[in-house]
């Protein structure tokens, strides 16, 4: 399908397509910066690419055109993906596409922040992950990883001019046609910060609000408070050493990140995990999804005052954690997957234990549904609050439960199945209104589906080896390391030099707990990634938050935030 898409593009744009490339299923076309908006507009309107999944910057200091900016596009309707590359020289601007895709706004800011590529026409080109006093561009190859820069004060998100404009808007809001103007003076507006340390943000985020009474006249958000440089750290480590860093992206569902990362690298190497390994990945990933949804729903309900539910659901999580701790020695930061396999097999008795615990989950979910499903306060607090339409959600780059809450049954486990998901029997729960209520309910329903997937996977987990039989990626057994010179050498090379991933690029993705989690990897043939870009599902989702809460009340803003499940580790990387 994508192949033909590339041909159609070549027919449409002729010489303006400078090059086409294809590597392990990822198709791409190269265009000049000036032609970018035209090509993307065509892809969006004529080829149905509704979503800009990510924008990736890459630095090649030796090339004349030092940077490459990649646009990853996706169409759920036509089920195809394509990448558009734009080579640019230093300081050469790229026209913004934020008018076409709303998600482009933040993605472009990120490329600007980390690489210094300017985007002409961008409405608000500021740093996004690094702080405002930071100098230089951190992901350029010549920026030393350890060079920290101090920040002495937080940034003010509103200027006086912004406040004056907001006051004008507030005036228009309160004045009815024909009345004498009931003027709101700029000093009447109250500036309130939610975050970066606030109980409702569940992590380090910040939203600055301009309030007229309790109404939010304008909101702006700021992120980057726990930017931990995942991408730079990845370049500084071997492919295998990156694994523990993936734990800490979405720390509520570490095993999902582990497994998807491993799959992404396997795709680049061109190997496939064994059937047993795939089964284990499905089991631990679905358990992680359950845990992630539990934490999200619990916290969301606590935020709107339904504290009891927290006790009902959290204990289930605690009990699943016990099994995960037994499995890999840690509760949260699991580091369980390996490139080409898992760190070890399941322990004896794992299956029965999990079956029992999923029974507890059933009880927790039933109890909570009884408490909230027809609860007047809950319904009033969530129905119609923070609603977003399907078209907007796609344009903002929504994936996962938040997109499904708008009624679109889009799930990568069905759309582009991996690890044998096509052989499991499960449904994709959807909502109708795309509001806070639907987002919570979709998550509740997904837990039930995930539970069923785990049960099926436990019942038919294939026997056989967990790791692929490939000395290029898997450490030799200890007996060989101690008993033969080849074994020692192999172990030594894999540990010190890292797994040699063949040169090339690849985008590996899967359905994370919050949506599409992707790893765009570039290898130059050494043991270290040349570039690693994460596509975190909550990044584009959070970019829409400010607009979503404008015009509403503060308590609504809190309820909405919880239902979006913004995990700062993944958001800021």
């Amino acid at each position: 399908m994508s192949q033909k898409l590339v041909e159609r593009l070549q027919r449409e744009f002729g010489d303006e397509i400078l090059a086409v490339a294809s590597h392990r299923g990822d198709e791409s076309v190269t265009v000049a910066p000036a032609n970018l908006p035209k090509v993307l507009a065509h892809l969006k309107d004529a080829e149905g690419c509704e979503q800009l999944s990510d924008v990736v910057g890459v630095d090649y200091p030796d090339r004349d055109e030092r940077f490459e900016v990649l646009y990853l596009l996706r169409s759920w309707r036509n089920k195809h993906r394509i990448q558009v590359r734009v080579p640019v020289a230093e300081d050469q601007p790229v026209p913004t596409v934020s008018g076409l895709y709303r998600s482009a706004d933040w993605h472009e800011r990120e490329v600007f922040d980390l690489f210094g590529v300017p985007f002409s026409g961008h409405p608000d080109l500021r740093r996004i992950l690094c702080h405002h006093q930071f100098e230089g561009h951190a992901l350029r190859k010549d920026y030393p990883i350890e060079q920290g820069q101090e920040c002495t004060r937080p940034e003010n998100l509103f200027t006086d001019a912004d406040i004056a404009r907001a006051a004008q808007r507030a005036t228009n809001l309160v004045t009815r046609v024909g009345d004498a103007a009931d003027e709101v003076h700029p000093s009447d507006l109250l500036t309130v910060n939610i975050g970066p340390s606030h109980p409702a943000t569940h992590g380090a985020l910040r939203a600055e609000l301009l309030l007229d009474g309790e109404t939010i006249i304008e909101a702006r958000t700021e992120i980057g408070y726990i930017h931990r440089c995942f991408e730079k750290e990845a370049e500084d480590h071997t492919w295998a050493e990156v694994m523990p860093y993936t734990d800490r992206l979405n720390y509520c569902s570490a095993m999902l990140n582990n497994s998807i990362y491993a799959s992404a690298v396997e795709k680049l190497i061109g190997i496939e995990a064994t059937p047993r390994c795939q089964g284990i990945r499905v089991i631990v990933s679905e358990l992680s999804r359950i845990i992630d949804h539990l934490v999200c729903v619990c916290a969301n309900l606590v935020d709107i005052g339904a504290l009891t539910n927290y006790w009902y659901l959290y204990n289930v999580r605690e009990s699943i954690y016990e099994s995960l701790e037994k499995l890999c020695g840690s509760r949260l930061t699991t580091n369980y997957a390996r490139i080409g396999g898992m760190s070890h097999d399941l322990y004896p008795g794992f299956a029965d234990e999990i079956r029992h615990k999923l029974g507890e989950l059933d009880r927790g979910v039933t109890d909570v549904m009884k408490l909230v499903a027809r609860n007047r306060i809950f319904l009033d607090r969530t129905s119609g609050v923070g609603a977003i339409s399907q078209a907007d959600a796609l344009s903002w780059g929504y994936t996962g439960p938040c997109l499904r809450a708008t009624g679109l049954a889009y799930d990568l486990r069905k759309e582009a199945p991996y690890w044998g998901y096509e052989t499991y029997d499960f449904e994709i729960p959807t909502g109708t209104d795309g509001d806070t209520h639907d987002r919570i309910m979709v998550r509740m329903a997904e837990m039930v589906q995930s539970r069923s997937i785990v049960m099926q996977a436990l019942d038919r987990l294939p026997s056989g080896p967990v790791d692929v039989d490939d000395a290029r990626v898997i450490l030799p057994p200890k007996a060989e390391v101690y008993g033969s010179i080849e074994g020692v050498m192999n172990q030594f090379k894999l540990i010190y030099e890292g797994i040699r991933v063949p040169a090339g690029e690849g985008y590996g993705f899967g359905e994370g707990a919050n949506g599409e989690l992707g790893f765009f990897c570039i290898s130059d043939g050494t043991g270290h990634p040349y570039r690693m870009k994460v596509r975190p599902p909550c990044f584009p989702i959070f970019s829409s938050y400010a607009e979503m809460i404008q015009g509403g009340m503060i308590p609504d803003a809190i309820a909405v935030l919880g239902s979006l499940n913004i995990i700062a580790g993944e958001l800021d990387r």
Partner: protein
Amino acid sequence: MAVDLESPSNYITTRLRQAVNWGRKYSLWPLPFGVACCAIEFMSTVSSYNDISRFGAELVRFSPRQSDLLIIAGTISYKQAPILKTIYEQMAEPKWVIAMGVCASSGGFYNNYSTLQGADRVIPVDMYVAGCPPTPENLLYSLTLIQERVEKEGLVPSSVRHAGRVQS
């Protein structure tokens, strides 16, 4: 401490310091400065299974004005540092600080351009809890150690206790 149950007016003699510290020790009000993965384990610590209220510290307060135990749970970035400092300064005396996890203690395995190499570069820290993340048991243990410390505390403000203890 002496207790007199015989005389009609039943009285206890003690030192002011001891009486005050006894009260403080069992009513620490924590402020979780939860920024990353460690905050999730903090949530586990307060949930019913681990139940932090057994130690009298269940009144989690998100206002620095109302709390006396700052628990830094997570990675502190340079961007976050001035905020952490402000929050610490807003807390009333006496106050204690736990750096939960290796990130808050030393930057952990994030030795890079964005991560502050330990919260003690901006504010004084009383207790460092190992782990990435520390288990709830581990955090509770550090809480009991803080309690021991509170018990022995004089009635001097922490600014005096901490004088000269901020690195950098």
